[in-house]
């Protein structure tokens, strides 16, 4: 399926439009399932818009052609693998410890979003550290 738009300005204009429509759609769903429609609609639309505009731009061809022919052989891919593995192991340990602590101490469970943020920030920091070191 070929969706790429060659002209950069046209690509971003289209991505902006698609991204905002998608974000507004999600905002609408979020608003309809909550008590305060306009507050929920506005928050979800504003928060989701940047990610959906960027995702639309990627689908429309942004960044294509700049990747190397053998991306799997690059050190950047190696860093991503190492960082991903490290972050996953940290996540398993953190979840295991928190479940054990919550069970033993009879505490409420930690919200899942905490672990999501932990994994994402852990991965980002590991990737940053590896790229700063420049090696494996």
């Amino acid at each position, binding site marked *: 399926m070929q969706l790429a738009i060659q002209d950069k300005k046209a690509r971003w204009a289209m991505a902006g439009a698609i991204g905002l429509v998608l974000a507004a759609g999600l905002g609408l769903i979020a608003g309809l399932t909550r008590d305060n429609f306009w507050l929920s609609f506005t928050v979800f639309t504003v928060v989701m818009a940047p990610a959906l505009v960027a995702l639309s731009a990627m689908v429309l061809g942004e960044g294509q052609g700049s990747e*190397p022919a053998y991306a799997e*052989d690059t050190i*950047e891919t190696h860093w991503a693998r190492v960082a991903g593995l490290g972050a996953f192991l940290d996540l398993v340990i953190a979840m295991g410890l928190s479940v054990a602590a919550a069970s033993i101490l009879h505490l409420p469970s930690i919200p899942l979003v905490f672990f999501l943020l932990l994994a994402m920030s852990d991965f980002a920091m590991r990737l940053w550290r590896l790229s700063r070191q*420049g*090696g494996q």
Partner: protein
Amino acid sequence: MPLRNRLKVLREAEGLSQQEMAKVLGITRQTVISIENNHFDPRLSLAFRVAEHFNVPVDEVFYSADDNE
């Protein structure tokens, strides 16, 4: 076993920049830099592409640090 290589010597003998070398091999410039600085051991497929490009055996490009040069 630490691996060493002669990528920089071979590249410079051919008059290629790191960016040009990266493009020829289908990788990034950072990868070329890391290999030349012995910070990154390439996968076998990349090692063979390097050797093929310079038309030399793989062990003339990549060798053990324990070996005498």
